[in-house]
């Protein structure tokens, strides 16, 4: 009888243990309060260069706010004290339901909105109550362009300069429209959708030139950056990102800091024969400009195809950063963040210009939170890597060797053909994708809205047919360690460490806005528009928008002199395709693997495209 008794108790214990294990599987990590890691140092800290970041005139004429891309508005009427009373001023429906990544622009009492495909341009008269639309410009881009836009038919913004609004359309045209009348001034056809080429980036207008780059790394499209004359739209110069030095505009003035970037025609030698012609390295992200040195800085995208075995060699000049002379386009220096990129880590993220205390003077640098998970600080005169510190969880590379500048990969994490490599962190969208961070000169911190995703990847032979995807990889993404898929980090670029951090349940795909009132604004993919304290990340105010927020919030001074905060919601982009593309969540490899990471998004938000403008009540 005794033996039977012990058997029963053993079974009981086992059952209880298994129940315990199953029930405390951590519930989807809700967004927790801020985790404070360090104190903000009192001493001198980074400041944006005066030329590239002039005093704030209350307007918002380009997505980066200024050439230094600080995304900082000096207006300080809204402060942590009074933000509690922030209220909705007016709204405007853009009539589109695709991913809305662009900011609204505000110039002297008029707000200009550029929508995703079909890229309508609205002008709203802010002087009138309810800001009715003055005029609407419809570029009517080719519908077939939707079939070659890899990651949702988005547009990352327009630019106002010298009375004209410049923007790109999905089917590869650049438009200049008169800001007052809404009439087209000129348009230039740059991309060819038959080759799979699209344009989604926001142009950079500086020194009389409009700089535009193309998208299509997943379609085997060779990357380039073209400078169009601001008045006529004619191409002043065009610099390719692969191929012979002549086409990459590499000449005598080209002095890359590191040895592995020096050599003749590396754009051909570091590729198998003819592979550079379909090698990607597209510039679809952010450019910055230093008016003092007339240098423009931008990053190049991932080499094609994703399957690294099909492109042995370093695949120059992909996943790197170029500095060029804006008038002639000649390359001055270049740094490659991921030689022979293994994980589609485009290096097109924002390049924030700043001057940091160095010895007893100041050193001109670039802050660059890269997709491979390292927060780079470059010397913007020579391209030397001053520091590269991980700002997210990384297990696919050991670090950046500051002597050679090269990323040190982890061999087991390299994806192989015919065998799935598991648990690659960060995933292909990287520790942070395109959504730019903001830099507040008051606190000296860089506020980074980014991701916490890992992935399994299995590669196979990619077949090239122009106009069709040229990827060669099956991917499944999922939440990284901790179970939260998004993180908002305040980063101290001087001491290379996190100051505070907020864990968000959904991936953070919205850019950040910093204001003079020591406030930071960002949106979540399920539609929460949040304001947190710049010093400690405490949540001060939030508003539930109609759809997920992946657009750039802005702050401007209205005609009545009051400070307004504006953001346009509309879930989409690569992360939100599962909603904007009406995908079927049962396929984990959908949208190049992102569907598996956001299977719950369709229950948390619907597609949309609505402008919200907030202000303090009178």
């Amino acid at each position: 009888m005794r033996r039977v008794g012990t058997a029963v108790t053993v079974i009981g214990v086992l059952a209880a243990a298994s129940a315990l294990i199953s029930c405390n599987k951590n519930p989807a990590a809700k967004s927790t309060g801020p985790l404070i890691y360090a104190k903000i140092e009192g001493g001198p800290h980074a400041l944006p260069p005066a030329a590239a970041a002039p005093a704030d005139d209350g307007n918002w004429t380009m997505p980066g706010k200024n050439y230094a891309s600080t995304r900082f508005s000096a207006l300080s009427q809204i402060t942590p004290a009074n933000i509690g009373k922030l209220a909705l001023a007016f709204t405007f429906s853009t009539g589109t339901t695709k991913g809305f990544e662009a900011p609204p622009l505000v110039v002297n009492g008029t707000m200009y909105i550029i929508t995703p495909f079909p890229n309508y341009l609205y002008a709203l008269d802010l002087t009138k109550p309810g800001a009715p639309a003055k005029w609407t410009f419809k570029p009517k881009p080719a519908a077939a362009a939707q079939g070659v836009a890899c990651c949702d038919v988005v547009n990352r913004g327009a630019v106002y300069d010298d009375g004209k609004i410049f923007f790109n359309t999905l089917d590869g045209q650049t438009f200049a429209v008169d800001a007052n009348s809404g009439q087209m001034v000129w348009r230039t056809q740059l991309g060819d959708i038959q080759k799979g080429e699209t344009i989604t980036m926001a142009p950079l207008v500086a020194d009389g030139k409009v700089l535009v780059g193309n998208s299509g790394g997943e379609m085997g499209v060779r990357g380039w950056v073209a400078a169009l004359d601001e008045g006529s739209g004619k191409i002043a110069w065009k610099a390719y990102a692969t191929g012979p030095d002549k086409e990459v505009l590499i000449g005598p003035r080209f002095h890359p800091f590191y040895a592995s970037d020096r050599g003749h025609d590396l754009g051909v030698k570091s590729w198998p024969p003819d592979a550079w012609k379909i090698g990607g390295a597209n510039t679809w992200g952010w450019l910055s400009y230093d008016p003092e040195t007339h240098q423009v800085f931008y990053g190049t995208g991932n080499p094609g195809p994703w399957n690294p075995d099909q492109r042995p060699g370093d695949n120059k000049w992909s996943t790197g950063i170029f500095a060029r002379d804006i008038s002639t386009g000649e390359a001055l220096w270049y740094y490659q963040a991921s030689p022979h990129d293994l994980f589609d880590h485009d290096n097109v993220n924002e390049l924030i210009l700043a001057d940091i205390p160095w010895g007893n003077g100041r050193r001109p640098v670039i802050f660059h939170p890269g997709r491979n998970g390292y927060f780079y600080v470059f010397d913007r005169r020579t391209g030397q890597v001053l520091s590269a510190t991980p700002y997210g969880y990384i297990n696919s590379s050991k670090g950046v060797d500051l002597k050679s500048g090269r990323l040190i990969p982890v061999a087991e994490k390299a994806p192989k053909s015919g065998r799935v490599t598991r648990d690659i962190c960060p995933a292909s969208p990287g520790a942070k994708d395109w959504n730019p961070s903001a830099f507040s000169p008051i606190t000296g911190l860089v506020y980074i809205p980014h991701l916490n995703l890992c992935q399994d990847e299995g590669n196979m032979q990619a077949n090239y047919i122009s106009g069709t995807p040229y990827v060669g990889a099956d991917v499944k993404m999922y939440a990284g360690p901790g179970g939260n898929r998004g993180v908002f980090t305040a980063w101290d670029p001087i001491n290379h460490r996190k100051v505070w951090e907020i864990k968000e349940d959904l991936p953070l795909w919205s850019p950040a806005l910093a204001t003079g009132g020591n406030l930071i604004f960002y949106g979540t993919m399920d539609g929460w528009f949040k304001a947190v304290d710049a010093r400690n990340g405490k949540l001060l105010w939030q508003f539930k928008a109609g759809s997920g927020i992946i657009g750039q919030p802005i702050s401007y001074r209205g005609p009545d002199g009051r400070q307004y905060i504006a953001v346009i919601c509309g879930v989409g982009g690569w992360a939100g395709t599962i909603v904007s593309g009406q995908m079927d969540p049962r396929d984990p490899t959908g949208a190049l693997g992102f569907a598996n990471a956001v299977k719950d998004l369709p229950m948390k938000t619907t597609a949309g495209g609505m402008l919200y403008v907030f202000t303090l009540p009178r």
Partner: protein
Amino acid sequence: MTDVRADAFDAAPARQSERERVEAENRQLAEERKKIARDGPKLKGEKLAARLDLAWRRPRGIIGWLATVDHKEIGRRYIITALGFFVLGGIMALLMRLQLAQPDSNLIGAERYNQLFTMHGSTMMFLFAVPVMEGVAVYIIPLMLGTRSTAFPRLNAFSYYMYLFGGLMLWGAFVLNIAPDVGWFAYTPLSGPQFSPGKRADVWAQMITFTEVAALAAAVVLTSTILKCRAPGMTLARMPLFAWAMLVVAVMIIFSMPSVALCSGMLISDRLVGTNFYNAAEHGDALLWQHLFWFFGHPEVYIIFLPATGFVSVMVETFCRRPVFGHAVVVLALISTGILAFGLWVHHMFATGLPRVGYSFYTAASMSVSIPTGLQIFCWLATIWDGRPRFQVPMLYVVGFIVTFVIGGLTGVMVAAVPLDLQLHDTYFVVAHFHYVLIGGAVFPLLGIFTYWFPKITGRMMNDTVGKVSFWLVFVGFHLTFFPMHLSGLLGMPRRVYTYPAGLGLEVPNLLSTLGTFILAAAVVLFVVNGLISLYRGVIAGPNPWGAASLEWATSSPPPVYNFEHIPVVESDTPLWDVEGELPVVTGLRVDEKEILLTTVVAAAPDLREPVPAASLWPLIGAMAVGIVFVASIFSPWALVFGLVPCGIAFAAWFWPKELKRNPEPVIS
């Protein structure tokens, strides 16, 4: 027959002393025992035969025919069905050779040819070779051991029906154009869900499940019969060598078949519900299939070869007029072959890039397995040396076996060496090797043993001259077919190609092989015709036409349904030669009920009288239920769930305990 225990207790309980009660009970039992009819020493001849025949006969008509549990009927059916599949497999081989007669020929298309060689390989290995050996054993072993039936006779019937349904399913699929086309070994990922669309590979994998269940069932029957049902006095040392061979084979089947059941089950689940056992991308492994398959594959070829060594031992003993030299050596050789066979499967995978050090162990193991077989050959030759060989037809097949098998064994030693195997693996050299050891090593002794035991099974002798002609036809046809294949293999002809280019020097060897195949076919036809004619017009054979020594020749030909009137007692390993006149017998078995004598495992001392289950339709119904579940589970996983109900009913009914009149009693005298 009232129940003894019930009334003994309720007469005057307390007062009567315990002793009186026991005496009353004994009287009752003695009374009871007198009524049982037993075959006492005085009950002999016609009277006993009639009563035994009444007890052991199966019910008349088609029901009886389907319900039989008589090991002789089941053995005959196994042999005839296996021969039928042998002919079908042979036709496949003929068609293959026609296509390969000349280079670049378009007689048979690629897909059809792949079906042909898959059907040829699968039929020969799974539907002919193993079942025919089990069939002969199921028929002869009870007779050779001096008992009236196998143990678990219903399981024996179930085994035959599962084998039959497996064969019908495979050949039904061939007719319905769902024949498998992935080879008899079906390597993944070719046989996996992506590269074998449709249900072809599933049919193959399910045929494996059928034949594996049949082989396991037969192995259990044979093991328990050999160990527990031997005639009294037949100690393990005195057991005939064929029985030893079948014991080793049965144990090998029990250990090897589950491995192929597991890997074919995993293949079906990969193909049906998308599991990732063999999906290299999801960290499964294509080599997992090869390891599991060949862990069964190599013992399988010894399962086919060892019974043949048993046949040769029997024939050499009879036709050299003396027992095989070194009985203990041959037994130890059989056992060590059985054990070593499990340790060398990786020699099928020398080209897959496994570590070279590991390969050297398997080279050593593959070479060492030829030592026990070498010893057996020595013992047979020593028997010939000491005996006076009579060259009747079975002995011719023994000589043909030795001449052919030794060549096969030696080429086997060659492909055991890694550097040689890397050139010879998957070429026609290996095709020649395994046909030498399978046809030379198993089919020659099989043809010999058919001729040898034909009189015992049918009561008539096979024609001697036709037998000699068919032997020489088989011998010449075989060597003309398969010796040139050594050369075509060395000249660079890989296996399983439906055609080959001209100009590589392969034309002559392939043409010779095709001619040889027709001679071989003619020889088989002649053998079968000889068998059929001899059924009716063969010379009447008495109980012991060859003057052999083992017990199966002690009863009439064909043996009555109860095999022996009295269970013989054995005092030596060649009973019929060492006993003048009547064999000593043991009596005491019932004549009104089917009953056999169980003896102890080693000394074969009489142990129990075991009632033998009656003929029943349930094994057939059970096999049909299991068959339907297997076939349906090719198409939907739910078949396994809903299929359990009919199977449960059939097996419950099969095992339902009949009301036992009384328990088996210990032998008193």
